[in-house]
Each structure stands twice: as structure tokens, then as C-alpha cells.
């Protein structure tokens, strides 16, 4: 029966690619980008090697594959975060490490007032290290929806790492040309019991290289909450990635947070010990 129900709304995407193309395709850091997680963006899959030609059948399969591929090994990146708000604008330089989806660490290197500040995500917990007072503090559940370092990301964005295909029903809502580029657009609707904060998500993905171009997040009333736009696709650490991500909240269109990747490498030598509280403090000094 699934043949009858799924086939019409999910057109098949049969395609054959070269080995090299597929390698690029499979290393897209988008699932996590979708969740607005800068940490997860670098949490890319590794060790993928040369996959067989893409035989994705449905929207669900496309996304499931990419999502699984992104549950990667380890990474390290140098990121600039440019935050613009109604009242101030500033840029933070930071270094980001990740290990799988469980662990990530962000350490701010500039500006001086915040240099050394670090955020550790280990499982469901988020810890901050404050070099000025040499203390680590755990972010309480009540503040998980609070802004991270004044940006338009929330602490919760750093933590939520459940699989997209487990939490959302996925359909292709559009397939064809947009602004001269062949794209797919996907509609993601959360399943009834899924522990997610969004009422719905829309993605636009370029067909040619499976790079995401934008993601729109909707609340439970179906109103647009924020838009994430990807650009500057380039090869870093041997993979094609969007080096520029821009988040714009719908209610404050003049505000934004832009992430620019200056450097990115994969399969680095880190273990879980690297993401420990002890290390969070020790390396901060």
C-alpha cells in the first residue's frame, strides 16, 4: 500500500552520478544547519568514501540519507559570527569542535571582553565557561530558549539533535526552476508526538549539487518565525559546504546573525575526554 500512498506525492529522483559528485553530495552539512545549529554544521559525516550512485526514491529517503550521513565523526572549524540587532552589532571570532552529535565545544577568541568564553554541549546539557571568574555554569532548562551569546540562535538550537526523519513527515512541495536553478522544495511537518519546537519547516535544495539554499521555520500557528539563507558554497576540508549562513528573525527583519566559516577540517583527533567539563576549564585558562 505504501506504493500507492507514497508514490504520487513523492516523485522519484533517480539519477546517476560520478563517484566524485556523490562524495560532495553526501557531505552536505545541512540537516543541522536546518536546526540553526552552528555547532552541528561542522558536525559532518566523515569516512563516507565513495558512495554508490544516488538512488534516492523519495523525499523522505533523500533527507534520511543526508541526515544520517551528517551524524558524523569529528570536525574543527574557525567561524565568525556577525550579530546585528536593533541596539548593537558585533562580530565574534570563535573556534568550534564537534564529535558526533553528542558533543560540541565553542570557544570565543575575540573580542577581548569575551575571549576565552566557551560553551560545551554534552548530550542534553549545555555548560558555559567564564574565564573572567574562572567558573563553569550549567544553563538551566528554563533558559534553553534564551539567546546564545546575544545571537539569534538559542541554547536549545545547540542541543536538539534528534533525527529529522523521526520527527517530521516530509513531502516534496515543489520541483522545478526557481530563479534559473533546478530545485526541490520540501515540506516538513512534525509528527504528533515529536519533541520539536517548530510547527513546520520548509527547505529549498539545489538539484545540481544538493546544496540547501534556504530554510524557513514556522511556529505552531503556521507563521514564519525565522529564515536561514545559505550562500558562498565552497570546498573546505575536502567537502562542499555553504560557508555563509544568515539567520533573520521574521519579527525583526533588521536583525540578523551571520555565520561565516573561515576554516573547516574533518576527522580530527579528538575523543570524548576533549569535551569534558575539566577540559572546558583547563583549556580556558
Amino acid at each position, binding site marked *: 500500500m505504501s506504493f500507492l500512498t507514497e508514490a504520487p506525492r513523492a516523485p522519484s529522483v533517480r539519477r546517476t552520478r560520478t563517484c566524485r559528485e556523490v562524495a560532495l553530495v553526501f557531505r552536505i552539512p545541512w540537516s543541522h544547519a536546518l536546526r540553526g545549529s552552528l555547532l552541528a554544521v561542522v558536525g559532518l559525516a566523515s569516512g563516507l568514501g565513495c558512495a554508490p550512485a544516488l538512488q534516492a526514491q523519495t523525499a523522505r529517503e533523500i533527507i534520511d540519507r543526508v541526515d544520517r550521513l551528517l551524524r558524523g565523526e569529528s570536525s574543527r572549524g574557525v567561524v565568525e559570527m556577525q550579530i546585528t540587532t536593533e*541596539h548593537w552589532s*558585533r562580530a565574534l571570532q570563535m573556534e568550534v569542535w564537534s564529535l558526533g552529535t553528542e558533543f560540541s565545544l565553542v570557544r570565543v577568541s575575540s573580542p577581548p571582553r*569575551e575571549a576565552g568564553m566557551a560553551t560545551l554541549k554534552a548530550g542534553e546539557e549545555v555548560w558555559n565557561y567564564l574565564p573572567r*571568574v574562572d567558573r563553569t*555554569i*550549567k544553563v538551566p532548562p528554563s*533558559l534553553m530558549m534564551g539567546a546564545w551569546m546575544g545571537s539569534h540562535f538559542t541554547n536549545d538550537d545547540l542541543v536538539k539533535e534528534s533525527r529529522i526523519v523521526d520527527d517530521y513527515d516530509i513531502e516534496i512541495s515543489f520541483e522545478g526552476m526557481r530563479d534559473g536553478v533546478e530545485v526541490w522544495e520540501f515540506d516538513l511537518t512534525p509528527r504528533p508526538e515529536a519533541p520539536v519546537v517548530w510547527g513546520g519547516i520548509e527547505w529549498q535544495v539545489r538539484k545540481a549539487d544538493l546544496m540547501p539554499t534556504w530554510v524557513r521555520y514556522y511556529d505552531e500557528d503556521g507563521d514564519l518565525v525565522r529564515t536561514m539563507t545559505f550562500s558562498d558554497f565552497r570546498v573546505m576540508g575536502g567537502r562542499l559546504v555553504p560557508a555563509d549562513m544568515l539567520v533573520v528573525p521574521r519579527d525583526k527583519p533588521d536583525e540578523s546573525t551571520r555565520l561565516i566559516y573561515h576554516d573547516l577540517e574533518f576527522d580530527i583527533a579528538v575523543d570524548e575526554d576533549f569535551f569534558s567539563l575539566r577540559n572546558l576549564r583547563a583549556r580556558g585558562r
Partner: protein
Amino acid sequence: MASDRVWWRVAWRNLWRNRGRTIITASALAFGYLSAVVMVGLTDGMSAELIENGTGLLTGQIQIHGRDYLPERNMHRTVAGYDGTDVAALLGRVEAHPDVAAAAPRLYGGGLVSAGDRTEAGLLLGIDPDREPRVSTLLAHLDRGRIPRAGAYELIVGREMARQLEIDVGDEVVLVAPAADGSTGNDLYTLVGVLDTGTPGVDASYAVLPLSDLQYLMAMDEGRIHEVALNVSRPWDTRAIAASLQQYLAGGGPEVEVRSWTEIRPELSEAVALMDSMNFIIVIIIFGMAVFGVSNTMIIATFERQKEFAVIRALGTRRLSIGRTVVYEGVALGLLALVGGALITGPVMVWWHNSPPDLSAFFSGFTWSGSLWRPILRVEYSVDAPIISAVALFFTSIFAAVYPAWQATRVPPADALADR
């Protein structure tokens, strides 16, 4: 009108025909008067308690904010905007207003309060330790410890927060707060005191530190404050004073918005309005019951006088005059009861007001509309309650006499005289 005076005299004399009955009936009315005044005094006392604890603890009676600060409480919207203002000059100007008793500046922030491996979200309140006690009772609620000193990295927190963080006086506390320039302020402080206000919202989430220390944490200049809270000399007239202050401050100085506590704490204002409406219900119930009691007595009294009414009717008295004398009797009874009621109510109110029964031993306080209510049955004097109750009593005695009066006019002279 000469005949009218006669009917008054008849009514008055008739009142004393059965002295015991009259005194008992008048006592019932007098006691009703006492009950009404005391009950209203009690609800007024409860209102006063809510207002005093609700505004006295933190709100103050009037608050001044920068433009557009409320209702969002955006931290960037300080008085006079980003540049801030000369706080001392502003306070001086405000206190120069004839109705303002005292003023205190405040700064608010939100952030994390952390100690050891425990962290809570907290509301950071920056105060002037010298001025604040003149406006609010917040600092008087210190359970232990002392008031923080400026520049010494000292703070106090609510009792519940101290319990959650497992800290006590002398322990170190980390504050993390988003600063005005977008950075993340963080510093290490010493807990020097613990507040026990009895208001859960305050005890669980407030961290209080000197204004200048919070400004430093939030990367704000000394001219930046969110609020000036004030006490006024005529608390019952805060609305009018707020309006006058708004005009007064419009002439020069930063653009500000002045609000009375009724606007800042609408829920409290509504709670008080609800209690006021209860007063009305109390008066209606008490005198509603009295109407039937007095009416009953007067019906019996008129039945006793059936023959008398029959005789004067037979002598040519008009029905209206007979009805009138019965109503006059009711009015006379009412006046008598009022005098008696006033005589017993006065001393009771004075005694109750000065030594309200404290039931703290049996009940603990509770909060209503964000304001603490202590189990102390205080009564407040009011001008309205005795007057409204007196009017209600007066009308009660008239209403109670209407039916007996109508009955009296229906007495058929021949039948009554013939005992039929």
C-alpha cells in the same frame, strides 16, 4: 402640617408602649449597623493590606520610566535612551514636587545566578541602598545578613533562590547577564544577605545588588536607569499625583512616562475593586435580613393596635395618616437604632483598628494578585462605610414599616371594633 407633628408624636409614644420590644428591635438594627461597618472595615483592611504589601514591597506608589520601556521592559530603553540621564538631577527634580515623599532609582536585568554546580535564572535588580528603604520595604525584609555595599561585589538574593542554589551568607555567586553592548557580562560576587519577603515571585527569582555594580555588569553608564520608584505623601490620591507629576516633568529634562500603581499593577487594582464590590454585597445582605425582622415586629405591633386604628378611622382619620404614623414609627425606630449603633460601633472600630487579632499562629499568609496577605484581621476606618450603612439602616426601617403601614390602613373599622 400641625397634624403631621401629631402623627410624629403618636409614632414616638407608640414606640415606647412596649419598651422591651422596641429596644430589642433597635438593638438588632444597631447590631446590623455594627456588623456592616466592621465587615466593610475588614475588607478595607484586606485591601489596604494588599495595596501596602503589593506596592510597598517593591512597586512603590508611582513609577517613572523612559519612553516605551513598558510593557516590554526592553533593557535598552533606559530613561532618556542610550545616553542615559543625570540621575541625581532627575531624582532632585522629582523630589522637589510637593506631593513626592521619596524617590529611588532602579535598574533591571535578567541573567543567570550560579553557585557551585547549581544555576538559576534570576531577575537582577540594581538599587541605591540609601534611597531604596525610603520607597520600598524590600530591604527591610532581610532574613539574615546585611544590605550590599556599592563597589564591593556584594549581592543579596531571595530565600527560595538561596535554597535552590544551596548558598548562604558569605558564599560566592556568579552572575551572567547580557550586557547593553551585546557582550555577556559576568562577575563573581559575595552573598551578604538573604531576603524573606513572603512573596514567592520575589523570594525565588530576585538578586539585588547596588545600582552601580549592576550597571558595570551590564556595560551601562552611570546615567542609565530603567525606573524611578516613588512614595507620595497622599497615597490614596496616587492617580492624580501621577498625572500632575507627568505634567511637572514634561517641562524640561528627559522625556518620561509616569504611572501610578493602579496602572503598573492592574491585577492588584482589580483585586481591590473586587473587594470594594464585596462591601456592597455585605451591606445588602445584612440589612436585607434586618428588613424582614423589623417588618415582622412592626406587623405584630400594628395587629395589637387594630382597635386603636379602627377607632381613629371611625372618628374620621384618613387612611394615609394612619399609614404615615406607622412609617414614622419605623423612621423613629431607625434613628434610635442608628444612635445606638453609632455608640457601640465607634469604640469597637477603634479597639479593632488598634489591636487587630493576629491569626498568624493558626494560618499562614497567602499571596493574591502577587501581593502578600498576612492573616491579621485588621480593620480600616473609612468615611463611606458608616454613611452608607447609616443610609441603608434608615431605608431598612422605612421599608420594614411599609407593609405594616399598608396593613394598618386596611383595617375595616366596624369589623375590628366588633371583634370580627
